[in-house]
């Protein structure tokens, strides 16, 4: 065997390997050494070790449905290919509650989870969202409603002139179960000023999730990487997520999102390569020792890279999705959806056992 102490000594990672084996927390400096290690498979093996300790040979997926209710957004983030400034602009759209229900009814299977996100629409009142949630809840009593990023929650609060905690309470009463992890981007103010100056700050994003966790809501978290941020800023982002997680353990899953360059106003000199995506996923697994799951989001990674990601720390293949707009407007070349059978075969082909899950990662295998 190759991955013995001497091997990790020869590449200068023996101490980190020891810490990982003992389950000890890694520092930012150690994270950086993992990023800089010229042997990607050694880092992948460490991440795989952590992943296997937590999840064995299991790899999860969910039968879900994405709905994007609008692309009208006041934020105009430079990396976004999806946003339209106002409803009158060409390509702009906004769904009614009836439209949303119709889309859900057309899903090939009753979704176990509905993932609804949109933009920061300048006019839609909170009651619009409350009505939408209540209507879906009435129709789909068992489905988990995972809706609205922290960015949208912050925007609703501002528009209504109330606290974001109050927004969360009202939406929870209307049927909201979980928050998706979007809008986190990179927390560092230097980066946000350049790529999403109008969006809520990193602290505000974390604060919305803290409030959701305090209400007993589970949430996910993300990181959009591969634009103008440094590896140090990625590590800072991961550590801030890790610190919040220590408070309430409300994060279920971390989703590393590679930045796709097409159709985006943000021009970058060094677009991500496949190796850097895998390194980032592996380092995320190793740094986020208190976040149970890491997603290989195939829509953004591409199917083949997402398969490889399962060996670099990820344990979740996301879902069947059906109709995704945000990543595809940015140039994602993946198809819009995958079948349950397709996902299961693929997971098995990667050497893992597929486990169909709910939004909280409880196995629903016996119900299939």
């Amino acid at each position, binding site marked *: 065997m*190759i991955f013995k102490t001497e091997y990790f000594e020869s590449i200068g990672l023996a101490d980190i390997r020891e810490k990982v084996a003992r389950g000890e927390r890694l520092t930012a400096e150690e994270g950086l050494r993992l990023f800089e290690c010229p042997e990607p498979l050694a880092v992948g*093996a460490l991440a795989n070790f952590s992943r296997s300790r937590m999840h064995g040979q299991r790899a999860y997926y969910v039968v879900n449905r994405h709905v994007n209710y609008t692309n009208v957004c006041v934020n105009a983030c430079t990396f976004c290919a999806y946003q339209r400034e106002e409803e009158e602009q060409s390509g702009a759209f906004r769904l009614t509650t009836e439209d949303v229900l119709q889309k859900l009814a057309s899903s090939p299977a009753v979704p176990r989870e509905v993932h609804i996100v949109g933009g920061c629409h300048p006019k839609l009142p909170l009651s619009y969202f409350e009505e939408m949630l209540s209507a879906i809840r009435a129709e789909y009593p068992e489905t988990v409603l995972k809706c609205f990023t922290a960015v949208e929650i912050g925007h609703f609060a501002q528009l209504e002139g109330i606290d974001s905690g109050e927004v969360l309470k009202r939406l929870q009463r209307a049927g909201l179960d979980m928050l998706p992890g979007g809008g986190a981007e990179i927390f560092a103010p230097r980066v946000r000023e350049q790529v999403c100056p109008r969006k809520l700050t990193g602290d505000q994003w974390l604060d919305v999730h803290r409030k959701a966790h305090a209400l007993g809501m589970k949430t996910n978290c993300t990181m959009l990487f591969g634009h103008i941020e440094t590896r140090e800023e990625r590590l800072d982002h991961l550590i801030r997520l890790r610190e919040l997680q220590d408070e309430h353990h409300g994060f279920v899953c971390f989703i590393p999102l590679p930045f796709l360059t097409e159709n985006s106003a943000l021009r970058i000199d060094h677009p991500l*390569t*496949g*190796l850097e995506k895998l390194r980032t996923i592996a380092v995320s697994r190793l740094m986020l020792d208190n976040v149970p799951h890491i997603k290989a989001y195939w829509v953004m990674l591409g199917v*083949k890279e997402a398969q*490889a990601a399962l060996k670099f720390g990820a344990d979740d293949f996301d879902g069947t999705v059906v109709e995704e707009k945000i990543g595809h407007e940015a140039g994602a070349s993946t198809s819009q959806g995958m079948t349950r059978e397709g996902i299961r075969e693929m997971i098995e082909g*990667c*050497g893992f056992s597929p486990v169909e899950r709910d939004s909280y990662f409880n196995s629903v295998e016996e119900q299939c």
Partner: protein
Amino acid sequence: MLNRIFEKVIAGERIGFDEADLLYCEADFHELGTLAHAVRMRKHPEKAVTYVVDRNINYSNVCTCGCKFCAFYKAPDAEGGYVLDFDELDRKIEETLALGGTQILMQGGHHPDLPLSWYEDMLRHIKANHAVHVHAFSPPEIVYFSELNDMTPREVIRRLHEAGLDSIPGGGAEILVDSVRSEIAPRKCPAGEWLGVMEDAHHLGLKTTATMMFGHVETARQRLEHLFAVRELQDRTGGFTAFIPWTFQPDHTALSHCRKLTSIEYLRMLAVSRIVLDNVDNVQVSWVTMGPDISQLALFFGGNDFGSTMIEENVVKAAGVSFRLSRDEIHRLVRDAGFEPRQRSMDYTVLEDR
């Protein structure tokens, strides 16, 4: 047991079939890749990744073979069949040379109406008009020409070589096991004839490559049988410059029900190929089927060559997969992986100052 195999490989010893089987089926993914990478670094310690600038020219898509895995061919009486004329060929070669290309990879189908003299004329025409390396005609084409013209494959190779053929691509190998071939490509030459053409070519002084298309109806053991057949011939001739495994792309083919292999399965096979084929210098990664992300990762699973820039590619594209990579993009992927990109010729001589 697995440990002992690792030790053997690290010590530079050859492994046998059962050992390869155990590695392929049992070894940990990252360990297997790292072992293959160690073999690759021993063979190529210079930390470089090579590639060739060339173009796949398909002189015809007319083919009597009707292989089940193919989405490119047209039967002789079907609509959409073509044969390139020499003007079109000239234009394609000139474009290739203008882009810094050094060779053309030319393959077609089994065209029932073209005599050997047509191919000889084409080669003479190319050589008279362009300074370009001609890497052309896979073994099944050579065998087909020999049957059509009633001569031995050796005689066909000799005549084509005389007319200007420089080397032979390793296509049409699929899986070099006859029970597999009779299922997916019943009218294509059997494994022994494929190997025979390569042996003849090597004896006549032509270098060739060898490929493997896996992930259709074959078993894991049959993939290994393929590797061992290549290794055995290479022991006798030393004429293979590179081994190029890729996964079958099922869309739009008669085998579209086959499950698409995952990148993990591709990388395992690549690594085992690098380890088993201790007598073949180079192993190519397949960005055409795997895309830029996985082909870059494959540089740590035994691959030391990025293949070709493929200014033109038609066959895989017909099966619904179309990745494009420019020379700059190949350079960026290679450098980001920690290697220096080096343009090469067909025989893996590095070309300077390109």
